[in-house]
């Protein structure tokens, strides 16, 4: 069985390295400050014992007051899992740092989030719409789109 790691334990380890990075933890989830996501991601991938080498799923959700970007991580080496979340307040000019340099698998998934929810990913190598065309009006998965 894939074992979900305790969010609290991982949060403690991350906080030793990056004191301001983690906002909250609950179950197998960490709420990470958006500006620190890349360093936290790299730490989770490269720290022995954590070894989160595989980004399973990356998506975002529109909660009206804020957007949440959700990262599902798994360690193939150790067969455990963790969920990272980043909250972005407001509805305009949303920017997240891209994790493509840590996990290449984020490439298309970040493009899809930009296309569907309008969150820009800074430092993404090729941030263009993935499923709709350039000039498509709005971002369809936003709750106010339709």
């Amino acid at each position, binding site marked *: 069985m894939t074992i979900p790691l305790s969010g609290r334990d991982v949060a403690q380890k991350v906080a030793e390295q990056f004191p301001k990075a983690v906002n909250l933890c609950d179950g197998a989830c960490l709420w990470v400050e958006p500006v620190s996501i890349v360093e936290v991601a790299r730490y989770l991938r490269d720290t022995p014992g954590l070894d989160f080498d595989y980004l*399973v799923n990356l998506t975002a*959700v529109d909660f009206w007051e804020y957007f949440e970007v959700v990262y*599902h991580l798994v360690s193939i080496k150790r067969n455990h899992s963790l*969920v990272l979340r980043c909250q972005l307040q407001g509805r305009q000019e949303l920017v997240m740092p891209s994790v493509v340099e840590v996990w290449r*698998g984020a490439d*298309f998934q970040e493009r899809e989030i930009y296309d569907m929810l309008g969150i820009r990913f800074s430092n993404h190598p090729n941030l263009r719409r*993935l*499923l*709709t065309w350039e000039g498509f009006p709005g971002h369809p998965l936003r709750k106010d789109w339709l």
Partner: protein
Amino acid sequence: MALKTEPIVVNMGPQHPSTHGVFRMRVTFDGEIIKDLEPVMGYLHRGVEKLAESRTYTQFIPLTDRLDYLASMTNNLAYVLAVEKLGNIEVPPRAQYLRVIMAEMMRISSHLMAVGFMINDMGAFYTPLLYMYREREKLLDLFEMVCGQRLTYNYMRIGGLSHDVPPEFLPALKKFVSEMPGFIDEYDQLLKENEILLARTKGVGILSKELAINSSASGPVLRGSGVKWDIRKADPYLVYDKLNFEIPTGTVGDIYDRYWVRMVEMRQSVRILEQAIEQLPAGEIRTALPHLVRPPCGEAYGHIEAPKGELGFYIISDTGVAPYRCHIRAPSLINLTALKDMVVGLMLADAIITLGSIDIVLGEVDR
């Protein structure tokens, strides 16, 4: 005077027989050598995730059929498992076994198409593919027996199945299971040591182990690169922990390894089917649930090992009758991430079989 050469950009697709649907590759060539490749997709985008937000949980099941239409039953399964995880819904044992049987039949059918079309891309037009179609036809007859459909089954329900299998199904499936290993031997005889197949696939389209993991590849693509990772073993669902089977892994990560992994997986699926038929218990096939399923407030990520890789549904409920958000983790889309790295430096004809060896279905890539 020295000859001057210029890179040339070629659009492969979206209307091209070898792209398995409406998929486009913008390929930059230097002579016949590929310098760059960019996948362009979205031609079949139907907004399934948005549609989910305006349908009840049960009404969304038929739409999942239209994702990976070569393995519809598996999509049904991934979706209902995610909803059951969200709502803590128990499924009767008979339904769990029947789900495993359907999923493995679907895996054989999907792998037959994957291998058949890959050989087709290689230039062996339709003759080997028709051998594969012969067995797929038998599987489709079995599916038709179960639910009256041959492509979009809509058979799974939240809490179980839409109805029990008819009495003639199990004898027919047993006959298929006893015949199938012989047919796989026949494919091996035709293909495994075929000089042309070996020359075209060995050492071509290599995906390293590190890159396969880093680019979130899954399914036969990941296992072909030598990573022993299968959700059925790593995070067992349904009754897979009670069944014996092995996970084949490749060594080099080339096209041949991905082809070989699929062939062995078909044999393993036959093994699973044999055991599942033997262990199949009698009893209910569906848990009694209210007409409108309303899972409690929360979220769930349910994932299964689909024929093409890890198929996941991430569902958020706000206690309404429809999901608040339903995200589909499509293996076909994410397996394409490393396509460029596999083909740069190769020739045009190799790019086509590399794409064939990833086995994409555009319904799932574009959703």
